[in-house]
């Protein structure tokens, strides 16, 4: 009984410290994310273009050549 009573505040303290550490970590993470978002960026122009025009832009295979003419 006494042990239980003594345990409770310790546990609560433990829980509070854990929570505070977590919140701090989260805060830090948020800072990192915000900083990264501000300082970094990526853009893929060709991908954007491809999305717009579908896949008809870049013919991977050249058109088949017409049949060779033969002399009569």
């Amino acid at each position, binding site marked *: 009984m006494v042990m239980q009573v003594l345990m409770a505040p310790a546990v609560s303290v433990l829980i509070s410290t854990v929570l505070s550490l977590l919140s701090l970590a989260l805060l*830090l993470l948020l*800072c*990192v*994310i*915000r*900083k*990264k*978002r*501000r*300082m*970094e*960026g*990526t*853009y*893929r*122009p*060709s*991908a*954007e*273009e491809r*999305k*717009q*025009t579908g896949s008809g*832009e870049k013919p991977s295979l050249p058109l088949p050549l017409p049949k060779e003419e033969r002399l009569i």
Partner: protein
Amino acid sequence: MMGFLRRTFSRRSRSRFQTRERDERDGKGGGGGGAGGVTGNPLLLAHQQQVVHAPAVVSGGAVVHIPAAGLARTTITCRVLLLDGSDVSVDLPSKSKGQDLFDQIMYHIDLVETDYFGLQYMDTEQVSQWLDMSKIIKKQIRDGPHYRLFFRVKFYSSEPNNLREEFTRYLFVLQLRQDILSAKLKCPYDVAVELAAYCLQSEMGDCDPLEHSPELVSEFRFTPKQSAPMEADIFSRWLDLRGKIPSEAEVLFLNKCKWLELYGVDMHFVKGRDGGEYALGLTPTGILVFEGSNKIGLFFWPKITRLDFKKSRLTLVVVEDDDQGREQEHTFMFQLAGSKICKHLWKCAVESHSFFRLRQPTTGNASRSDFTRLGSRFRFSGKTEYQATHGGRVRRASTFERRPSKRYPSRTQSLCKAAISPGKHQHISSHASPDPSLHRYQHNIPIGHEPWHPAHPGLTPPVYLQPSGHTPPHSFPLSSPASDHQFSVEDNETSYSGKIHHHHGCHTHSHNTLCHTHTRNKRRAPPCPADELDISQSLLKALESDSDSPPWPSLQVNMDNKGEEKQLSEKSLHPPVSPAMLPDHLKCNILKAQMEAAFRKEAPPTPRGKNSNETLIDRYQSSSQDSAASSLTADKMPHLQDRNPTPERLQPRSNTSTNRRKRLVRQFSFNHEDENDLPEALAAISSQSAGKSGSTNSLDTQIQPSIYPQMENMPALELGSPCRPSPSPSPHPSPSYYHSSIPRLAPYLAAHTDSGEEIRLDREKIRRALLMTEL
């Protein structure tokens, strides 16, 4: 971790501190001035800075205020400078977004094709940024309550013929003219000549060899390196463009301009990995790479697979087709001066690509969750060029006014200033009192004075100062040459008031040879439409004073030197002298000379001594008597003044209208730059009063005719009363006392002024002051 927190948080606080510093610096230097873009970043050389805020090429812009705050409790005021020089200040609610401001401006100027334009501002780190339409203004422009924005062309249309409205094309032309003049857009010689010819055709109409000349061309500024042979070429090219209406000329202008190599190229200066200076230019087709100023590569947009930035580094991944037909990836890394600049370049590239290459803006791809993304989410939002040109309907024709270009002194003015040495008679003849211009200036006087009053005390008027309402916007001048000259004169006044040192301020009224004195003006000297003389003449005309030939026979002889005058002033702004007007004019000038000599506050600086001789000779034709003298000595002044009392007394008796006095007061009150140009002799005389009144404004009070006659109180009076609206004409009994003593004093002084004793100089001063009461 602590270090990281410090870095993330302290950066903001540091930037806040820096903004306060920069506010002061910007307030002085950048302001709205043309060099706004050049101040700042020491990492880049001056020539590398994009001069984004070059001054407008046209004049006559108005100052407009748009209250659009509605019912908001807190408001912000944004000042936007338009391409035509107008300064629009918009009140908006604090939390308004960029789009709100943009809409207000678009509504004000009545522009429909808004997608090509944007608002630019200078951020805390001297990086010019485009205002993001979707974000709150306050969050973007973080320095202080002064929100100064510049309306500019953001995307230079690759095909100007696709611009639907004439007004849009006109704005493009204005922007391109600004770019060419500020050397942002380099132009080879013949292209520059042609573009200038188109501009002239648009503004002046058909070239008339009888009235227009290459000197007229020299009043305009088209390129930074404009030379006389170039102007002659422009003139001859202009002749070829006979019959083109302004809109046609502008279309031709744009079509010629679009082929320029650097047309529409958005330049950003970068450093390569090897440390060399490169530049990236964003174009509709791709990204140009310059090494120094040589183009070394172009990456087409379809070939660029990745465009990333991280802090200050920009990465470009390009696929190139190898000789064997295989694709090969190349990675280029560029270093920029700072993370802000880097991000700005990246954003510009993204927007540029989207605008020119896509059919619709990218719909936000939800491939990655927004919550945990790590990079910037920025994408172009707005209409692309495709949408702009293919969508929408053409609205019914709307009208707009073209503003006249800024004019500068023509070449002949600067040449004749160089050619004519001081003390020659020719000066006098060149300051002709043209009757037609007299008529014009009469019109100008009531308008012109008021705005210059406030401009005067401010010794450093901002570059964009445009006297509000001074010059009403001119509709396209397919007008007669007379009106051309008229607005050119007005333009001179307006442009000069802004651009030039305050000394110069009113002296656009000055004469040809006056140009010297305004050494601050690096460009050619003002054309000197002889405003001052004309004003005085007009006043005298109003005074209904008859030509008074007897007292100044010798002067008239000089005045009749029309031949020289014609030679000097080829422009028709200076029609030949009319002898009848001269004596009155002289009288007025003498009066003015007396007044100013008596109440000058500061001695003219010595370097101006020589120049001021000329100017004095110019201005005070009365001094033509002393034409040969290098300096107008004091003994001459009383000599002239001898003659003055009699005619002067006659004049006021005939007509004492307050109107005239008002005009005189007004004329003299803002012409008090003249005092700086008076020669040293007068300076010596008036140096007594120099210490008494410091501000130039006090001249206003000094010239009031109703000066009390007490000798010792006179200086005090000068300072005491600010501009009285209508000075009392009635002479006091005590003035009359002095009055009678004047003729006695005059010969006395004439004999002894050379001695330079203080007392006599004082008496002379008083005498002059009293002579003013004669008015």
